[in-house]
């Protein structure tokens, strides 16, 4: 064991979170350091150095660095992107700008256009046409395409031809011609990036990828530049949207795979906790300063979808399914026209932040309400690192209360009641839309603000168990620590399920598996550590959307294997949509291979409770319209104690509120498990 330290880093907007695993002892420790937005790799190195000196390892001991980054996401949100050119089949240059039509704001009278990353004068049509079956109707004719392209001085190029998922020959030939004229120019072709049917979504994904390549390449170069400092030379992997990691080389070619990686860590952690605690059905909720993210673990597996979006731009790539609503600690409470109290969607963010931060905020937030009602300790905020202005908070709540005809406590409790109701509504909808019911799930609460609301949110839904994992503030990094290399390879081709489809399916599966193997080999994964699984996007003939149906590790399917897949499709259709139609024709639209390269999985140990009294004292907490005494507990010291609500459990970066009627205990893997008593 030459380099026994594994580090997972999750770079967020404010903090860079680290989790460090020492394979010699199995211990896992956490560290936090401020993010350095100008060059996040700087903060990363600061964090690694701080952790090394704090926990006593050498930089040369680090063998593996697993890195979650928002570099691609932020580049898109800030439009800090390369100046690209899009080449399309002639006659379809505007598909990127026409989009899919459905508007979001029904009542708006001065709408903004849908975002479009490459303007009309930088989109060029090329003479060529491929048909849906891959046959060539019009051969590729370059004409003056290369001259027109050169005149636009592109920093990156995207090529999207109709039906290229069925035949990539024209896209590849054009790429080759461009690279011959412009060696080193980043060229993304849609048959590589997202070889799936539906031209707008494929265009959007390919264009995003193209204009991100130069941005992500520059970051990789800076990151590589730090390798070698004081013997720091780990293998580095980046977290993707699909819940797995990939090599730097893959990320530099396909940066779109990083775009929605933010939730991956939390979801990975959730599925690990589901296993550790023997609770296969979890709803994971991550509440921070501005948002509430809901993901679902069912039968131990995180729900994956094949498309998401960033800033209104579709990304057609597999990713962890997530429902996000704009509710967090910073959500602002206000009284609207007609005397309505609303909480959010406006947020005070980190600046000015809640009124109590004393940075100029004047409108009360959810955090202010939690402070005023004693759920958060004004004396021990962020472990005592921050002084709070409770007078200003009280005044802001009093103003809000006046506008509603309520006292400040009632106004604050109202803010929490409304917040909890909307969080619960988001969770219910996430389950409902899959045909699932809250009573069959436990709530897994994390994020800086999640613990303050979890038991009351569970009450809203009739859920009876809440799990508070260890290190809720750095849980994403904890999930990343145990991730594997995952490569998704897909290809759209329309098959009607039946014996006639078998030869075509077998050939396509073989092609995808070969490519998957080659990619894992390129990333240095030894053969015994590789696992390939197949899945199909399926639908009834006539439907316009597909269900993702797993097909195990099938290689050359026979009639029985295909029948089993079809039966699974009917089953999952029945579960999700309440009916199935066994008599109707079933189609396969896209085949997918997920290639997993297992990284070594060292054993971990559960930390022992700190040797100090778990009971820290009592605090006055306002709940149910009156002040009550609540016991305050120290999470790190909690052992065989029973916490009876109303109570508070505090730790360094988070506070948990155990509501009246709930009891909590320390469970497996250091998690606290709260259960609802009889009502």
């Amino acid at each position: 064991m030459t380099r026994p330290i594994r580090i997972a880093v999750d770079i967020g907007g404010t903090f860079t979170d680290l989790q460090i695993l020492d394979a010699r002892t199995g211990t896992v420790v956490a560290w936090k350091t401020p993010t350095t937005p100008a060059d996040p790799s700087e903060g990363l190195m600061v964090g690694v150095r701080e952790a090394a000196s704090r926990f006593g390892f050498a930089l040369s001991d680090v063998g593996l660095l697993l890195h979650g980054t928002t570099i691609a996401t932020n580049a898109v949100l800030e439009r800090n992107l390369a100046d690209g050119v899009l080449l399309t089949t002639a006659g379809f240059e505007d598909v990127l700008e026409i989009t899919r039509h459905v508007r979001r704001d029904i009542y708006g009278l001065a709408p903004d256009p849908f975002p479009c990353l490459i303007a009309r004068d930088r989109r060029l049509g090329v003479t060529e046409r491929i048909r849906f079956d891959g046959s060539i109707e019009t051969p590729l004719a370059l004409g003056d395409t290369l001259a027109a392209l050169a005149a636009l001085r592109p920093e990156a190029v995207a090529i999207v031809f109709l039906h290229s998922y069925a035949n990539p020959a024209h896209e590849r030939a054009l790429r080759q011609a461009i690279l011959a004229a412009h060696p080193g120019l980043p060229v993304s072709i849609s048959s590589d990036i997202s070889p799936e049917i539906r031209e707008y979504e494929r265009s959007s994904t390919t264009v995003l990828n193209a204009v991100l390549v130069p941005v992500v390449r520059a970051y990789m170069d800076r990151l590589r530049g730090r390798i070698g400092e004081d013997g720091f030379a780990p293998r580095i992997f980046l977290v993707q949207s699909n819940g797995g990691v990939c090599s730097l080389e893959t990320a530099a070619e396909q940066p779109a795979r990083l775009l929605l990686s933010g939730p991956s860590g939390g979801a990975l952690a959730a599925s690990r906790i589901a296993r550790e605690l023997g609770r296969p059905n979890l709803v994971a909720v991550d509440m921070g300063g501005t948002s509430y993210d809901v993901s679902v673990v069912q039968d131990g597996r995180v729900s994956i979808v094949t498309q998401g979006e960033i800033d209104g731009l579709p990304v057609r790539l597999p990713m962890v399914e997530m429902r996000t609503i704009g509710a967090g600690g910073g959500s602002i409470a206000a009284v609207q026209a007609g005397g309505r109290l609303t909480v959010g969607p406006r947020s005070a963010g980190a600046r000015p932040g809640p009124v109590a931060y004393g940075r100029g905020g004047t409108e009360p937030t959810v955090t202010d309400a939690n402070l005023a009602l004693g759920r958060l300790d004004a004396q021990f905020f962020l472990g005592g690192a921050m002084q709070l202005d409770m007078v200003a908070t009280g005044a802001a709540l009093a103003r809000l209360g006046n506008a509603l005809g309520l006292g400040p406590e009632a106004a604050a409790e109202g803010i929490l009641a409304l917040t909890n109701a909307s969080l619960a509504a988001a969770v219910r909808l996430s389950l409902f839309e899959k045909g699932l019911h809250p009573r069959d799930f436990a709530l897994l609460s994390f994020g800086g603000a999640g613990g303050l609301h979890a038991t009351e949110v569970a009450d809203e839904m009739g859920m009876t168990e809440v799990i508070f994992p260890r290190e809720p503030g750095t849980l994403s990094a904890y999930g990343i620590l145990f991730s594997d290399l995952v490569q998704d390879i897909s290809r759209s081709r329309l098959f009607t399920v039946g014996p006639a489809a078998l030869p075509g399916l077998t050939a396509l599966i073989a092609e995808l598996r070969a490519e998957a193997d080659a990619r894992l080999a390129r990333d240095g994964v030894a053969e015994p550590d590789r696992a390939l699984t197949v899945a199909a996007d399926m639908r009834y003939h006539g439907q316009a959307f597909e269900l993702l149906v797993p097909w195990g590790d099938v290689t050359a399917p026979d009639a029985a294997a295909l029948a089993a897949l079809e039966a699974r499709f009917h089953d999952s259709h029945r579960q999700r949509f309440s009916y199935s139609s066994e008599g109707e024709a079933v189609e396969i639209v896209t085949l997918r291979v997920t290639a997993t390269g297992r990284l070594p999985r060292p054993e971990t140990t559960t930390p022992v409770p700190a040797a100090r009294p778990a009971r820290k004292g009592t605090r006055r907490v306002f709940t149910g319209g009156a002040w009550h005494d609540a016991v305050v507990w120290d999470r790190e010291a909690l052992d065989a104690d029973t916490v009876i609500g109303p109570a508070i459990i505090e730790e360094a970066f988070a506070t948990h509120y155990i509501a009246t009627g709930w009891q909590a205990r320390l469970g497996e893997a250091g998690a606290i498990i709260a259960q609802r008593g009889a009502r």
Partner: protein
Amino acid sequence: MLSPIDIEVIRNALSAAAAEMDVTVWRTSRSTIVRELLDYSTAVFDADGWNLAQSARIPQHLNSMSAALRTLLEKFVAAEDWGADDIVITNDPYCGGQHLPDIVAFRPVFHEGVRVAYVGTLCHHIDVGGLAAGSYAAKATEIFQEGLRIPPVKLFDKGVRNEAVWSIIRQNIRKPDLLLGDLQSQIASLEVGRSALALLPARFGAPAMLEASARILDMSEEAMRAAIAAMPDGTYEFTDQLDDDGIDLGRPIMLTVRLTIAGDSVTVDLSGCSPQVQGPTNATLASSNSAVMFALMSASGGGFAMNAGCYRPVHVIAPEGLVVNARAPAPVAHRVAITHRLLNAMYGALHQAVPERIPAAYYGCSYVTTFQTIRADDARDVLVEIEIGGSGAAPAKDGVHAYSSGMHNNSNIPIEMIEAQMPLTITRYALLPGSGGDGQYRGGLGLVREWRIESPRCFFTANMDRFFSQPYGLAGGKPAAVGRLDLIRGRTTTPIPPKSDNVPLVAGDIVRLETSGGGGFGPPAARPAAARAADRKRGYV
């Protein structure tokens, strides 16, 4: 007396119930029109049938379900005869509905014997019979040709299926499995809504629920009145027009709006509109009200909960026998044409009151095209597409190209999906330069789409408008281009009438559609040189 917090918690719970009902319809429905075009709505009503919360996706549906429920309660099913396990349905446009494909279903919610609410769903069904598949015949001249007309009737009576009604429906429609499947999903959605709503009186008590409902409506009324009061008093008139009804060709249908704002209320007088027409371009009052309310709510600046409280300050005058309040048995299938144009006219009038808020005319038409392809082996496939045009320029902003506006809100269909499934090839899909109205702010562009027929035979049906009357500009802005529909056969291009049933086509024929842009806002002379240069550079003009 409930605290404002309780009221807000109840209001959010009502919206959440409507959302859960919405997810249930989506999750359990069968037909493409419901599941993929999302042509349905769900809503929660107070104990008297007034809309409290809705999850409408389609503006055409917004604010129309309350009319159906109220009409039903007033004329057909007395509230005291309507038990907790009775579900009433109807699709009758002349009972507060819009057109026959829309079936509404309602169920009351009780708590300890007290009626506290109703829940309702509306689905656009794929076919309800009549002389054309899809129940959208362009040439119908009376409603009896448009399909099965279901009067208000109990589909479930004390929880028991009314089998007679089910079998009458089954016998009279083209796709019984799809329709009855979608109807089942409406019923499932009502149960989801009922059980979600039942939690509220269980927690707060029935009187509190009724009090909260009343307050919620009052608060929206107050907010709506404040928004109207902020508009200058006066009478504002505007007329826009539809090309014709598809039968009496070339005879325009006039939509005249006379809007009077007085203090905190508004009167919308539609008496000047054309008499009802022979063809299906007629609207019932519920449809017209929906366009009027949509115009006023969007012009109000928003920020408050949209519910039946917002209707109270609005008085609509629309004598029976006009296109905006057709008398039975006039056909009404294409009522969306009337509501598009009525909305254009409403905005034209509102521009005079709040010129800083109202955009120039959008394209104002659902460009519906239907291709029925027939292969050599006689296999038949049908493609229905709804295209759009450009949005009108806003008072300080260019219009948006190819932007779904006004009364509809549908998705287009991916070219690759069409070609993979049907003998059709799309040969062009692009923005249409020059189609937006000029002005200080330019209207959004319409688009062009071309379909080439690959099967030996094909029948093409179109139902569209704005081929003669242009989408208007405002404040000196120019109108947008009109639409155009051509058949290209070999080297010959001939126009196809925009309202056509079953035009015979053969392999190699190309149908080319050009849609209208949006009107311009402000005088063209005021458009900055830089904006004109950018338009030229990007080829928008």
